[in-house]
């Protein structure tokens, strides 16, 4: 088998390899430098743009705030309205319809029945105390109460007590729950 003869000396070969390596290193460094310059420029430009945008936005905000401040009075009225409306709604919602309950008192305008006391509690529940002259008045009162129950205006109507007094009158207490 015939082997080729290498006429280039070892030293020259090393020199050539060194020159090649130098070229490679130069190319890599050049590329790296180019990339660095490009990235640096991009970063700088982006930074400048961002800074400018921040300043421009700050100016916009200041201008808007100034305009809003000039309408401060309108805003204060709107805030007052929103606040008061909530309170007014609450008061109106919590009102009890005493008129309707008291109107029902006319139901108990029965001959022989005397209203002696009345209490309208917070939940518009009506407590009535009175007395009936005789059995007939008591029966009439009971009849009126039953009629009221049929109207279903009250959740519950209770006779907590009915008693006979020494003078022959009947003591009656009545509760109308809404």
């Amino acid at each position: 088998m015939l082997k080729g003869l290498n006429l280039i000396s070892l030293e020259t070969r090393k020199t050539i390899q060194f020159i090649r390596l130098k070229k490679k290193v130069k190319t890599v460094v050049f590329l790296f430098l180019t990339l660095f310059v490009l990235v640096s420029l991009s970063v700088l430009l982006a930074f400048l743009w961002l800074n400018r945008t921040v300043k421009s936005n700050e100016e916009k905000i200041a201008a808007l705030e100034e305009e809003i401040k000039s309408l401060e009075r309108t805003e204060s009225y709107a805030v007052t309205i929103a606040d008061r409306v909530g309170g007014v709604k609450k008061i109106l919602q919590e009102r009890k319809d005493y008129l309707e309950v008291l109107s029902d008192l006319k139901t108990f305008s029965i001959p022989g029945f005397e209203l002696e006391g009345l209490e309208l509690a917070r939940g518009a529940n009506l407590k009535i105390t009175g007395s009936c002259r005789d059995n007939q008045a008591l029966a009439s009162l009971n009849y009126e109460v039953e009629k009221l129950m049929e109207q279903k205006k009250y959740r519950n109507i209770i006779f907590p007590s009915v008693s006979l007094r020494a003078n022959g009158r009947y003591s009656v207490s009545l509760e109308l729950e809404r």
Partner: protein
Amino acid sequence: MRKKTLLTETLEEFALPMGIIFFILLVTIVFLIPKIKQGFELRKKIVTQEGKIDKLSQKLADLSTLSEAELFDSSSLLLTALPQEKDFYRTLVMTKQILNKNNIFLESFKFAPGELAEETGKKTSSLSPLSVSVSFAATFEDFMRMLNEVDKILPLVRVEGLKVGSMAATESASLFGFSGKMNLISFYSPLPKVLGKPEKPLPRISNQDRQLIEELKSFYQYQAEAVSEEPASAGVGRDNPFSL
């Protein structure tokens, strides 16, 4: 000796590329990375600013659509309905006026005004009540008329409980005179302290709210001045609210 010469030669040849790489690394660490970080922070700031600009623009647009005169009228009306200060004198005068107007005899009254003022923006609850306990004598019809009127007056008042001690019914079965005690509650509420933050959205006034304001316009406004029919004398009015 020859080896040393080769090493020196190699170092000389690569010194510039190495220097450049070192310079790039140094500049990247000292300048580029902090700038990139700052850039991200600025981006975040811009996003926040843009959000704020949107809110402010929206608020400005909302404010521009509102009529200052109309709002002033509505807020004045609502402040009459629900005053910002506890005005016990006005409550007292108003109570007396309502009772007088409806022929109800005022036997006595009792109420505790308590602390007179509460600083705006320091409110603890939305509504503060001022309760007046009134003993009266009236006919049933007059009392019903008065109750009807109480529901339609400004400042808003609520009847909170009614106790009737004696109620005379005739043989002809008609209810007439009775005497009793009732609690009338008026309310006040200090104004909120919300102005000062421009980006805070403008509270919305809904159609329902406008309807409520329209409804309140039909209510009767009691004026404290209305009772000053008698000649003014020392020791009346605000100086002595109990002198009716």
